[in-house]
């Protein structure tokens, strides 16, 4: 994948070990606290430094609001930014599902004929490394600026390529010995697909899902910066920023972060349900 492939698994292991402890070795609460104490302390320290710096250097509130101000704004604005967040999340999810379904279907169709997938892969990989979100204004024109479909289609396009690429890889990068085994059973193509290729593709697919979950939230918000419904989080952020209401913008950004993380975690749980064997295999290999 053209995504930061090295970073993602490392991050994933961290998250997994922490949030779903039964996968790795379960850390006891005390151990866990001790392990994460430095990070928590550092975070609190940074917030304190931020707060102090704004006070000491008399930084204008509209340039960099204090964390305490952001926190109180967050609480005050929650009735507005939470529904906005959900609105945007729906776009991200809708686009995600659309992109995944298309990516998987096309991968299944093309990997059947290696000539097509071999020919198409370089293009898919090339397109995947372009800033697809730059298409946002065009989609806004096509579907209408307030139509959630405009954002969903951007998200879908962004999700489509990693899912397509990974699914094709998973379906085609099958162990030769495993294929010969199937051949020795005189297995039909259906059996090879369902008993070998698809299970083989699942880990590839989930790694695409996880990368795409983050991308889809980013894509939905960024495409809203180019204009969209008043109910959308990206529109809220860009409008508040334009009005120099930076505390409000920061509060909304917190919501965006939480959505991205929640989506990612939901996929980790889903992965565990679908492929318990793979999650434990990974844990065992560590």
């Amino acid at each position, binding site marked *: 994948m053209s995504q930061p492939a090295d970073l993602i698994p490392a991050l994933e292991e961290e998250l997994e070990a922490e949030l779903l402890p039964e996968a790795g070795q379960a850390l006891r609460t005390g151990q866990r606290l001790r392990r994460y104490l430095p990070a928590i302390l550092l975070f609190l320290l940074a917030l304190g430094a931020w707060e102090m710096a704004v006070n000491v250097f008399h930084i204008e509130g509209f340039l960099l609001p204090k964390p305490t101000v952001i926190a109180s704004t967050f609480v005050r604005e929650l009735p507005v930014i939470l529904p906005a967040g959900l609105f945007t999340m729906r776009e991200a999810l809708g686009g995600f599902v659309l992109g995944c379904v298309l990516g998987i279907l096309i991968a299944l169709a093309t990997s059947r004929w290696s000539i097509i997938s071999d020919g198409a892969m370089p293009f898919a990989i090339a397109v995947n490394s372009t800033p697809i979100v730059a298409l946002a204004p065009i989609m806004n024109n096509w579907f209408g600026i307030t139509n959630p479909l405009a954002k969903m289609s951007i998200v879908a396009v962004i999700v489509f390529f990693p899912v397509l690429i990974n699914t094709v890889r998973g379906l085609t990068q099958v162990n030769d010995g495993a294929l010969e085994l199937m*051949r020795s059973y005189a297995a039909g193509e259906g059996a090879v697909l369902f008993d070998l290729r698809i299970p083989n593709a699942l880990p590839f697919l989930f790694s695409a899902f996880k990368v795409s979950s983050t991308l889809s939230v980013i894509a939905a918000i960024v495409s809203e910066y180019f204009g969209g419904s008043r109910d959308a989080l990206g529109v809220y952020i860009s409008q508040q920023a334009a009005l120099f209401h930076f505390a409000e913008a920061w509060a909304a950004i917190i919501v965006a972060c939480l959505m991205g993380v929640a989506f990612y975690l939901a996929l980790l749980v889903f992965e565990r349900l679908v492929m318990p064997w793979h999650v434990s295999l990974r844990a065992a290999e560590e």
Partner: protein
Amino acid sequence: MSHSSPVVSVSGVTKVFGEGDSDRVRALENINLDVHPGEFISLIGPSGCGKSTLLRLIGDLIKPSGGTVQVNGKSAHQARLDRDYGMVFQQATLYDWRTVRKNVQLPLEVMSYAREKREARAQEMLKLVQLEEFSRHYPWQLSGGMQQRVAIARALAFEPSLLLMDEPFGALDEMTRERMQMELLRIWSQTQTTVIFVTHSIPEAVFLSSRAVVMSPRPGRLAGIVEIDLPRPRAFETRESAPFFEKIVEVRECLRRDEVRVASA
């Protein structure tokens, strides 16, 4: 033995890889071999002499460039379609996403056995390889030797008439290897399956086989066949008996005679 009709009959088989290329490889030349029901045949020779190629030709994983391979009186291709082969390779190639039990059931699923029949067969096979208590484990939770036993159980699950094994114990340590050889002989005597077993270990070939087919390279051909009439059941003591050493010497001589012949040619 020789009066029963052969399970495998290889006649005049040649195999050339990359035919027409400048770097083509003559992997096998004029191979003739009959294997009789219930025999345990090993193919032995230095690496690159075409043992795997011959095994794969018999199993219809590749096609010969010339000559014919008959299995159970039909073409190798038809025999594969009739599911006459069980195969075990150096890598166990178990499916990560299946438990041990489900791995053994894989061929049965592909061959559309009924569910109860599948469960029963898998149970029976795991008992045969003495891994019943691991039926719900995943492959990565097993040692290499245990994985290879699962692969054997899987290959025997659909009662193939012919078991093709390509250096199945090649990746195991010496101790495990000797234990697995005993296991295999026990299974072979219980199931009465015909086995063709590829190895490059002379003691392994002698300990297991009823006949050792000695091969030599460039181009791959048969250098000789050594009858191994050591008494059965073979056991730990067999490896320390004088006839065992005599047979080892005989196989080694056969390999060396051919080397000398190739060198002087």
